[in-house]
């Protein structure tokens, strides 16, 4: 498999007061180019750490994280990251937030403006381009953050529970919007979530993780066609896969003691 992102025997520990916490105990995972992979698991299974390492914000203790076959060394605009807490710069307007990465990349003014407007339009925030984040709802803030990531045109999108803080209705809308954009530009997406429905609805492959030590518990292929629709969401096949994932998340065997 020609993998876009690959984790090879990744180990990451954090020192605790009188022990070490094994966030990831030897995780291997390959994500193909243009694939949409979601990761679910109980808290403490290291799913956010996994994403953080792909983003280059954290380094593995041992093992390696490769993007396009090259070891990750620090963050870069080839990998867009969306955080759960939106992480918009509150002193900048929607437009200025979206422009931020383009300015860093020294994109010429005219092209910068074009790409900014395009990204803002894509997430439906054109009417709010000059608004400050404090005047936006949670869903709009996250759309702005998504536009900011799209603007620099990354090949990989790393999303860390991006819709976790949103109400159910907004969440579904943003899921559909995300899939629609993905179906057009086919970026590789690594999407962390704790919502089983979300994981199954979005992904072509769901990675179920287990905690203590953090590891890949199961990988479930979602053999549902794209585009995903409400019909699919309500289909028996969706429910079957959802139940399968649910069971493997919530009824994992007791954690290994020898962590």
């Amino acid at each position, binding site marked *: 498999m020609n993998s876009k992102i690959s984790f090879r025997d990744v180990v990451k520990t954090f020192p605790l007061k009188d022990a070490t916490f094994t966030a990831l105990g030897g995780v291997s995972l390959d994500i193909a180019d243009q694939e949409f992979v979601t990761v679910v698991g109980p808290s403490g299974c290291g799913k956010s750490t996994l994403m953080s390492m792909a*983003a280059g914000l954290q380094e593995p203790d041992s093992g390696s994280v490769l993007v396009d076959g090259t070891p990750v060394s620090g*963050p870069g*605009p080839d990998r867009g990251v969306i955080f759960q807490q939106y992480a*918009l710069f509150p*002193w900048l307007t929607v437009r200025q937030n979206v422009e931020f990465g383009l300015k860093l990349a020294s994109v010429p003014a005219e092209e910068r403006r074009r790409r900014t407007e395009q990204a803002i339009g894509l997430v439906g925030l054109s009417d709010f381009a000059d608004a*400050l*984040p*404090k005047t936006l709802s*949670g869903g709009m803030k996250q759309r702005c953050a998504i536009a900011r990531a799209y603007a*620099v045109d990354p090949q990989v999108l790393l999303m860390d529970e991006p819709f976790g803080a949103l109400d159910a209705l907004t969440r579904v809308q943003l899921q559909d919007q995300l899939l629609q954009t993905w179906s057009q530009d086919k970026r590789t997406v690594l999407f962390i979530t704790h919502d089983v429905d979300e994981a199954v609805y979005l992904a072509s492959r769901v990675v179920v993780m287990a905690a203590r030590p953090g590891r890949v518990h199961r990988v479930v292929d979602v053999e549902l066609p794209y585009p995903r629709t409400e019909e699919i969401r309500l289909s028996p096949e969706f429910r079957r896969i959802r139940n399968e994932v649910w069971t493997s998340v919530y009824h994992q065997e007791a954690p290994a003691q020898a962590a």
Partner: protein
Amino acid sequence: MAVITPPEKTAAGQRQQQPRRSRRRPLVLNAVALAAGVALWAVVAALGLVENLPTPTAVAQKAGTMIADGTLVSDTFASLRRVLLGYALGVVVAVPVGFLMGWYPTVRALVEPYIQFFRTIPPLAMIPLAVVLLGIGEVPKIAVIFLASFMACVVSSFQGVIDVDKTLINAARVLGASDRIIFAKVVIPASTPFILVGMRIGLGASWATVVAAELIGAQEGLGYRMQKASTWFEMDTIFVSLITIGVLGLVMDRLLLLAERRLTGWQERR
């Protein structure tokens, strides 16, 4: 002295800009309270309830003569000059020092013991030392005011850097920002609310210090004028000086508040 509200950070986005109409009401109430206060003062003074308390009219008359003979203007100018010089120097030095302390743990470890030590000493207590070391000219007065504003500002700008939301730094980093860019484009704007609070506290401390500093060996200034007036029992002069200090402090605080509103209006407030 105006109440200083700390910068607020809230997750939930609640817009709370009050409608214009209700914003005028407190102003009316302020004026009413002020008038009532002066009226009470007039009554107390007229009835002679407090010995040697001058009447508002006597104080106003005295202010008139002090303005006419130029003493009030020259005193105000002298005090204002000291405050502005010491205060501005304090802010200008404190902000970069605070930034460096927040950004580089080494700088923090080197500087912090001194800051923590001198912070426990009230600037006023430094006056005798300043006089011995620096004489009785302008330098010791400005030095003490400098110290007062520096101490107030350095801690808040340091705190501002420390408190910058780590996800904002990460967000900039994943968009390709270098440390230098992160400092300029994220850390500085994010810590502005803290710095402005420190600046307001520092301004209050500077005013408090100037009066005391002028008690020793000054030739002019509002504090000096009060000191001199008290030996001659000129209560009205003391009141004129006091009110002038209060008004100047209030005006400067309001100016800073205005700057704060303009610079940090992006903050989400509860």
